[in-house]
């Protein structure tokens, strides 16, 4: 066969789709699709496998020791004889630092996201957002080191003044805003201009004095507090909130951006101010995305190990009183990390399996909260789309 013949054949087959060619195409299509499916399902299978293997090693613990001790006792003495595996205090510690970090990170994160998406000009936002996202790139051991070496001694030595200044800084802007709004509302309906002005001024003065007194007395009370140990739930909550912040800010800012220009301009066109637009239009429209951001951030706090291991103090007791964030706590993650080394199968079975029971508990908590948030997001979407 000459080379010309071959060339002609190739040319013709490029246009005429033969049965063989079609078959080949079909096969390659199927191969390509199944490869993609395989890779995608691999991820899901990994999750299932983790669940399965953690559960497989967690079940023996409940077979040996039963459920009630694990969930109701605070006696955590895994190495003692007789051992105690009561994890209530540890579960409580995990919840405590998670709630603490959420209380700090959620308001801060959402405020920052609103500021980024709707207040700051684009040129500033371009630089600020990457800087906030940089926080996510800092390794957790560096955060832990900071908590242990800098924040803990600071809290011990200047705990009272720090609490006082934090109280002042956080509360005074809100009080100021509240006073102005309340005075405005109280005097809005008074007809005489002169009378209104006088009343307005007196109400500003009276509420201002009350606010100042509140700030001063609570501040003084806080200043008197002496923090016994710096490695406590407060320290960990602060650090964890900083670790959760980049997730919350970044994801909720994306959600706010996704609301779109039409809704914003529609709101302005109806005569709404920027504040009204943000509070009444943009936030409700973006709420499902913001909720997803919050859940992601909380999961980060719940699952974080290194920081709590280094800076929580690791004492397995429920603080007294129960909301006392100035006492040391121990969390599930830190306990798994700290006790795994010792607890091999050879040195006592329950001691090994109890850590898997804790891991399973963490997994279940995150699955449940993910599930709930998923449901809320779906419902929110339905409401927003008017169904």
């Amino acid at each position, binding site marked *: 066969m000459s080379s010309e013949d071959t060339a002609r054949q190739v040319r013709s087959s490029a246009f005429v789709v033969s049965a063989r060619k079609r078959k080949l195409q079909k096969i390659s299509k199927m191969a390509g699709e199944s490869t993609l499916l395989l890779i995608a399902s691999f991820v899901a299978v990994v999750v299932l496998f983790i669940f399965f293997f953690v559960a497989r090693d967690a079940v023996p613990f409940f077979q040996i020791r039963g459920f009630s001790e694990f969930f109701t006792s*605070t*006696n*955590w*003495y*895994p*190495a*003692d*004889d007789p051992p*105690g595996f009561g994890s209530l*205090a540890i579960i409580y510690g995990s919840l405590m630092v998670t709630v603490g970090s959420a209380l700090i990170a959620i308001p801060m994160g959402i405020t920052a996201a609103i500021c980024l998406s709707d207040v700051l000009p684009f040129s500033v936002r371009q630089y600020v957002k990457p800087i906030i996202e940089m926080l996510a790139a800092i390794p957790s051991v560096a955060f832990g080191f900071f908590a*242990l*070496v800098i924040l*803990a*001694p600071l809290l*011990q030595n200047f705990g009272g003044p720090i609490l006082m200044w934090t109280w002042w800084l956080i509360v005074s802007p809100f009080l100021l805003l509240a006073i102005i709004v309340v005075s405005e509302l109280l005097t809005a309906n008074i007809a005489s201009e002169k009378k209104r002005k006088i009343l307005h001024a007196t109400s500003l003065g009276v509420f201002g004095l009350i606010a100042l007194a509140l700030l001063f007395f609570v501040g003084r009370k806080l200043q008197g507090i002496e923090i*016994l*140990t*710096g*490695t406590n739930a407060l320290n960990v909550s602060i650090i964890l909130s900083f670790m959760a912040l980049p997730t919350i800010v970044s994801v909720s800012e994306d959600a706010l951006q996704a609301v779109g220009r039409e809704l914003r301009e529609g709101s302005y066109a109806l005569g709404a101010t920027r504040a009204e637009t943000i509070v009444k239009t943009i936030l409700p429209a973006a709420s499902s995305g913001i909720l997803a951001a919050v859940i992601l951030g909380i999961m980060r706090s719940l699952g974080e190990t290194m920081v709590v*291991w280094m800076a929580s*103090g*690791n*004492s*397995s*007791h429920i603080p007294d009183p129960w909301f006392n964030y100035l*006492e*040391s706590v*121990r969390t599930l993650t830190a306990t798994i990390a*700290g*006790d795994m*080394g*010792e607890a*091999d199968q*050879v*040195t*006592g079975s329950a001691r090994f399996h109890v850590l898997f029971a804790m891991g399973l508990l963490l997994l279940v908590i995150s699955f449940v909260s993910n599930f709930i948030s998923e449901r809320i997001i779906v419902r929110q979407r339905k409401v927003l789309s008017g169904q």
Partner: protein
Amino acid sequence: MIKQWGKALSVLAIISLVTAGRAEAKSGIVIDGSTTVGPLAKSFAAYFDKKYKVPVTVSESGSGNGAKSLINKSCDIASMSRSMKPQELTAAKSNGVNPVSSIVALDGLAIVVHPSNPVRSLTKAQLADIYTAKITNWSKVGGPNAQIVVIQRESNSGTQESFKELVVGKETPVTRSAETQASNGAVKNRVSLTRGAIGFIGLGFTDSSVKKVAVNNVMPSSATVKNGSYPLSRPLFFVTNGQPTGLIKQFVDFPKTSDGKLIIKELGFVGKY
């Protein structure tokens, strides 16, 4: 032809060199275990590396982990600040490991407090009461009116087990509000930064950042540990699988040599030999 032979020969030479290097690397020593013995093991390792060109790897993960590594045959020497527990011995037997302990040095468990704390001496009973939360204020033991921050070690620590055995009693649990730290260094760090804190660390780890407290009126020091008058002292071990031979024997017996004794003394431990 001759050239090819030369090539083959050089390849052979390279192979033999590589395998020789591998054989030598395999003769290194792997040590795992106590953070208390860690500094000693590391200094010994540096000495062996320099003098005999023997690579020695030292990990510090707690006595319990050392025992576990030895049982799993993943280390040559387990450094331990307590003796093997009965369960560990049975586990070793069932895994075909025969643990043989030899004493490296003696160590005092120094009770340390913040440098500003005026308390100079505590009795063993007072210590036990502090660690079981029967005493929670420094004023009860002659100090200022301040709450005591109790600091203990993680459950895989040999130091923790020694302390429990020597002070609190094996069956008595330590108070739940005790903070837990992962190493001697971490305990020292926390105590040096916390005014109301009390902790226990190996004598070799003490320095001016923390204040040592006398126990039953005896200050911890090399002399009081060696003559046995300090109540909280314990031996430190190197545990091997079977009677040590060759390099490992040399390493285990190193504390008996004059260089070994010098290193032990320099690091603040107390020589047994």
